[in-house]
């Protein structure tokens, strides 16, 4: 395999109408509006449905736990399940995923333990899962920075002729950051096997899309990098899955990166500490609630006779058990050792950190002793 790709750069405007395979009433869309993509088979759609239902139940559970103070913060993806689940379901186990703080449900779908996903939001440690084991990077907070990591890893794999793909998510707001630009450009110039999913949920905290870009669609940005861009109905999981799957296949075949914009909506506040009444109308939220991605697919599956009561119950049970498990792990306190603070800063040990560790150790012993004796005193 040569790394020199001779084919012509892509030079076309994405369709301004979002690509859609299922409309909001749950009817299959045909013709130009589908952008030439095929509706996935029923079994695939059913699996996507199951994943979305479980993801939402998890998300709702975590939001509730956060309100109870079990987590320091939680950025919910309620309403974005079609983007989150559709795209992550299009990559393979050996591919890599580079998520943001918003994408916990994609990590859940990827098979990571709820407790490990949420360790960071609970405040135990910055990152709680084994990135290499799951081929999932940590959830990036500094916006758009992870997109470069995705490009770098993809390029390294390509240099090794390892046919993996990297998938990275970013928000509509994050597209304004310089790093997003540099990632798009490096990916295009190096033709790395990278799929960028912009989840355009209309807001960056309080800032609406109209103050973020003047482009007709965020997918239009692809043009400036000579890569294909797709403007997709981000509440249509069928479309999200199909478009991502095609992009992943192209990337794996040496066809380079793709930019996908999923048009969706952030139903919940930015995080639990946000107050969206300051910047948007309840009406708007209601409007988008009526475009719910799960309901849409449900209608289709029901109309196709693929979602009977038994399956529905089975899925609901599975979702409940994830929720119960999540409650359980988030209610138990994790054992934390403050001395571990010093253990992972450097691979090569440092005398100064050893000294500081010893000082904290002595301090902790002293205060434990003070506590013990005061408890002893109280008991007497």
């Amino acid at each position, binding site marked *: 395999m040569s790394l020199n790709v001779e084919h012509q750069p892509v030079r076309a405007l994405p369709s301004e109408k979002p690509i859609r395979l299922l409309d909001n009433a749950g009817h299959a869309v045909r013709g130009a509006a589908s952008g030439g993509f095929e509706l996935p088979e029923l079994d695939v759609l059913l699996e996507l449905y199951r994943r979305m239902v479980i993801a939402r139940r998890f998300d709702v559970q975590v939001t509730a736990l956060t309100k109870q103070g079990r987590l320091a913060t939680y950025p919910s993806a309620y309403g974005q399940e079609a983007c989150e689940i559709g795209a992550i379901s299009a990559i393979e186990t050996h591919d890599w995923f580079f998520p943001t703080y918003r994408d916990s449900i994609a990590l859940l779908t990827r098979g990571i333990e709820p407790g490990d996903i949420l360790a960071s939001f609970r405040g135990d440690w910055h990152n709680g899962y084994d990135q290499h084991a799951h081929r999932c990077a940590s959830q990036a907070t*500094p916006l758009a920075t992870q997109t470069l990591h995705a490009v770098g890893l993809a390029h390294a794999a390509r240099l090794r002729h390892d046919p993996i793909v990297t998938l990275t998510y970013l928000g509509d707001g994050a597209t304004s950051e310089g790093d997003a630009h540099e990632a798009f450009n490096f990916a295009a110039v190096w033709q790395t096997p990278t799929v960028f999913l912009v989840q355009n949920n209309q807001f*960056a905290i309080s800032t609406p899309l109209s*103050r973020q870009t003047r482009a007709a669609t965020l997918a239009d940005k692809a043009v400036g990098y000579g890569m294909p861009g797709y403007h997709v109905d981000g509440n249509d999981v069928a479309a999200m899955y199909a478009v991502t799957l095609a992009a992943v296949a192209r990337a794996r075949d040496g066809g380079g990166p793709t930019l996908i914009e999923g048009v969706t909506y952030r139903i919940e506040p930015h995080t639990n500490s946000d107050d969206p009444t300051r910047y948007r109308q309840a009406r708007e939220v209601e409007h988008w609630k009526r475009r719910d991605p799960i309901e849409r697919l449900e209608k289709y599956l029901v109309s196709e006779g693929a979602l009977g009561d038994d399956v529905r119950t089975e899925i609901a049970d599975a979702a409940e058990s994830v929720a119960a498990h999540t409650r359980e792990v988030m209610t138990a306190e994790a054992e*934390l050792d*403050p001395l571990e*603070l010093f253990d992972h800063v450097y691979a090569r040990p440092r005398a*100064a950190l050893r000294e500081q560790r010893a000082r904290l150790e002595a301090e902790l012993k002293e205060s434990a002793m003070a506590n013990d004796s005061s408890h002893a005193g109280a008991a007497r």
Partner: protein
Amino acid sequence: MTATTTPTERAQPATSAPAPLTMAGALNAALRDAMEADDRVVVYGEDVGPLGGVFRVTDGLQARFGDQRIWDSPLAESGIVGTAVGMAMYGMRPVVEMQFDAFSYPAFEQMVSHVAKMRNRTKGRVSLPIVVRIPCAGAIGGVEHHSDSSEAYWTATPGLTVVMPSNPADAYSMLREAIECDDPVVFMEPKSRYWSKAELTLPVTTAPMDRAVVVREGTDVTLLAYGPTVRTALEAADAAASEDLSIEVVDLRSLSPFDDETVGASVRKTSRAAVIHEAAQFGGYGAEVAARVTERNFFHLAAPVLRITGFDIPYPSPKLEEQYLPTADRVLAALDTWEWEDRA
């Protein structure tokens, strides 16, 4: 516009009755009064408009002044600071907000290569009266990247003025002064103090923003603190008083320039000094404090200047920040490591 507008020269809005005000409220009032006093003052950044900023420091200002005086920018910090350079060149006095310390890093090149250097580059022909507000430091239970202390980066950069108030009165007065200053000012706001309150009559004018202030007198030790650690130092002083150790607390307020005069006078009096900050010790701002206090007062010092700081590690996750942050206890324990024979 003179180079050194003093606080007393400034246009004073009608004096209000004393009222309890948080630091966030005082900053909000300072922005409001500055915008009222000078229509060259414009405010922008991420979410400063309808939301009023994630800490509500700009609350209500867009409703009052309209979206041509204060507005939400696209989400790009280099863009925010870089456009502020151009605005200031035109004659505006932009006040921009970085949402957290760590999110100012994308703007680092604009800060260091332009904001700091423009005036010198142009032999004073182009000055940049920009205020970059940075909600700083930790102790708010924030997840990764929300509790960094970035002051060492800015103070190591000639051309920048760096200040950090520790209380509502200073917050108001220093922000007004920063906005009136013809030099670019990095205005650092300790997040953990945003909700601390004081009875204030506005407008309030405290010491000039380039001066340190003795906030508690003492005779045995000088504690040098700024922003969030001023409270820590005062707590330590209280606790020590019961053990007959008299601690003087100096609120540095201005990190760059450093007020050698006020600090030197205190240290020469007590002969012992320690500096307290949240940031890691190695290469932290406390190094400059310790080095210069020692250089200038070596023969007055009975003991080395101590640095009581965060550890040399990245800021920890919420559940471990308590162990990381310098507390009054840790301050007192550190003072105990000095040999105290010289004390009567």
